């Protein structure tokens, strides 16, 4: 296997990241680096959007360009940044965390990464033929009209969806069949649990979106009539197909981040994670519930009134397993010996900001309120608190936490803390004012707006620019530390999960001898023999 051979000559080791490799660690890094490039791209689009919105009647970008920017900002951030960066973390970590040599299907694994590349390029290429401009939700019939880029967009999203489905098949198979000796289900790290739960969602939800996109693409390419209103086509049908995926997609994008957080809290508190089983089970619960709530995005679109209330209830119920996680994390750090290193800071930031996203989610689930704030900046604020304050903070926390494992080097703590501060302030500054704008009557996706929203928008833009700046110390830190950072050692955080029991970076085979697991992943302050009880069985005493 090529990566073995090359690993022998570390001098040229970096080259393997540029080509076809079946080593899950190489693929993981390829995912993360590629997706971060797209993150910067989506961020640039957001920058242009926020610049346009600095003044109510700005003409910096045309209405057409603006719609293309918002559409592709959303699509790039979701499909080309958050999904793949988390997939990359999963790729890198799952085999290490369960003591496997690699993923179950290494070639399929490489293929799913290499599908990401054409998918991404296709979405960008669409800008040359008139990019998609119907919003990332691509509501028909608007999206069936529209420029050719709309077709490329649909094909691109199909490719990206296929890529993440392949990845999920690999994850589930690997987790079920490749756990090393002693790695029982109830000894799996919570990040592995979260990837398992996420993969179930990806496999059940994504194909439905694929089907819907196929219908749109066919309407545009061969002239089928699925969404032709004169012929009897039903625009609501697309909304059902779309949201059946795109609501679970939110959990697909936040569960792995929660998994990473669940790894970080016990380590930096020197305490076992509180309520291990409940956290693991709540991930599964969120996945399954997440599949039953999609139509709460359609309260205003004229769905069968009888169906609205069940959807409202099922949506609100998701707050329960989410709450279980948050309270368990609080109980984990309570009474611990807390170290405030950068990963911990981002983890704490995750809770405090995701909390806002979660609470406002319940507001949106309440039908009477949703009928007012649906499709306003209130929704924009909510989803950014969930996906940026939540998922992206979680991704950052994970990158800071596992960077030493991937590179064998330490990141600079000072730069890390600067990054955290800028990111935390920027996020709240950018998105809190949007809640108010939405409540007061500002619709989303508008290129110009009522002057009475000017101050709120300028605050938001300020925050957005601060977020843009906050990426610089991170980039500098990651690049410079990789070259010349201090050596990290195998286990710089004194963590107990399996990936820390091999060298940093791990050898091509992950473990020189197949590890045998005798204790849970979070048995801090434990004499080893007690550690088998790393479950609520030992609860309360």
């Amino acid at each position, binding site marked *: 296997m090529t990566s073995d051979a090359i690993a022998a000559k570390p001098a040229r080791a970096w080259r393997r990241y540029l080509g076809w490799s079946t080593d899950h660690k190489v693929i993981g890094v390829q995912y993360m680096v590629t997706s971060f490039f797209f993150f910067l791209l989506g961020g640039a689009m957001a920058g242009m959007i926020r610049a346009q919105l600095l003044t109510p009647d700005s003409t910096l970008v045309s209405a057409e360009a603006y719609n293309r920017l918002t559409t592709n900002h959303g699509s790039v951030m979701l499909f080309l940044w958050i999904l793949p960066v988390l997939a990359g973390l999963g790729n890198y970590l799952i085999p290490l965390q369960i003591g496997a040599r690699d993923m179950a299907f290494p070639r399929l694994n490489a293929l799913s990464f290499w599908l990401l590349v054409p998918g991404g390029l296709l979405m960008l290429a669409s800008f040359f033929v008139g990019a998609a401009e119907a919003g990332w939700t691509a509501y028909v019939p608007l999206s069936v009209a529209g420029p050719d880029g709309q077709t490329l967009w649909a094909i691109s999203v199909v490719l990206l969806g296929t890529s993440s489905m392949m990845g999920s098949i690999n994850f589930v198979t690997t987790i079920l*069949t490749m756990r090393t000796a002693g790695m029982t289900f109830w000894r799996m790290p919570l990040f592995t649990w979260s990837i398992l739960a996420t993969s179930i969602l990806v496999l059940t939800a994504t194909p439905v979106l694929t089907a819907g996109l196929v219908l749109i693409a066919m309407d545009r390419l061969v002239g089928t009539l699925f969404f032709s209103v004169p012929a009897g086509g039903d625009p609501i049908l697309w909304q059902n197909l779309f949201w059946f995926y795109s609501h679970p997609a939110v959990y697909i994008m936040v569960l792995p981040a929660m998994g990473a957080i669940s790894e970080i809290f016990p380590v930096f508190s020197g305490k076992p994670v509180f309520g291990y089983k409940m956290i693991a089970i709540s991930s599964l619960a969120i996945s399954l519930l997440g599949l039953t709530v999609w139509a709460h995005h359609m309260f205003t679109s004229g769905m069968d009134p009888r169906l609205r209330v069940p959807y409202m209830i099922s949506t609100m119920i998701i707050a329960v397993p989410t709450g279980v996680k948050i309270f368990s994390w609080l109980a984990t750090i309570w009474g611990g010996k807390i170290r405030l290193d950068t990963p911990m800071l981002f983890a704490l930031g995750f809770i405090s900001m995701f909390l806002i996203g979660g609470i406002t989610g319940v507001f949106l689930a309440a039908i009477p309120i949703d009928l007012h704030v649906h499709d306003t900046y209130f929704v924009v604020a909510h989803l950014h608190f969930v996906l940026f304050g939540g998922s992206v903070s979680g991704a950052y926390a994970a990158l800071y936490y596992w960077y030493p494992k991937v590179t064998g080097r330490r990141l600079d703590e000072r730069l890390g803390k600067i990054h955290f501060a800028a990111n935390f302030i920027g996020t709240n500054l950018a998105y809190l004012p949007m809640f108010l704008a939405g409540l007061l009557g500002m619709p989303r996706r508008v290129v110009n707006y009522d002057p009475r929203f000017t101050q709120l928008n300028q605050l938001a833009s300020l925050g957005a620019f601060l977020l843009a700046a906050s990426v610089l110390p991170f980039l500098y830190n990651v690049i410079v530390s990789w070259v010349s950072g201090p050596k990290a050692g195998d286990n710089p955080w004194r963590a107990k999960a399996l990936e820390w029991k091999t060298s940093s970076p791990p050898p091509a085979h992950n473990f020189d001898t197949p590890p045998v697991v005798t204790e849970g992943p979070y048995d801090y302050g434990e004499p080893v023999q007690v550690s088998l009880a790393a479950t609520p069985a030992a609860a309360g005493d």
Partner: protein
Amino acid sequence: MTSHSRTHEDEFRAGRELSLDHRKLGMWLFLASEVMFFGGLIGTFLHYKATIPSPESAELDTILVGINTFVLITSSLMVVLGLDAIQRGNRRGLATFLGLTALLGAVFLGGQVYEFVSLYRHGITLTSSVFGSSFFTLTGFHGLHVLIGVVWAALTLGKVLRGAYSAQDHVGVEVFGLYWHFVDIVWIVLFTIIYLI
């Protein structure tokens, strides 16, 4: 499957403890996603069947398609008989049955092409009406799956003729079988909701 320093034996121990084979598991997970994909298309078809009157459906030739259904079911039987054969170490039997599978699959496709052509003659096309769009899309995607299955069967047959598979090692055949039977099940459902109901 992978070039590992360790053998499959201990690498997939956890799977064997759950009596799971990673290749079969992978295929089942893929099939699960396929269920959802066809589910989306079927949901669409049913939705329009319920909302838009489709007089065209009277043009459908249930007898012809019924025979085609029979052909596909028979091809499924060929696959299992082939598997039974190789499990008894009978590679010639496997080869014969795989050949028959591919043949019957091809016959099914032929029947579908004939059906499509005659419908087009009646002016029922992809773009003639919502019914036409959803009918040809749904059956077309199934046909595509059959086509892939036929190619896969032929490739497997080639491997068999080059001496692959034995009474001990035939997971490859079984995995192909899972795919083929799934395509068969999809057709059983489509036959009901499109032609019978």
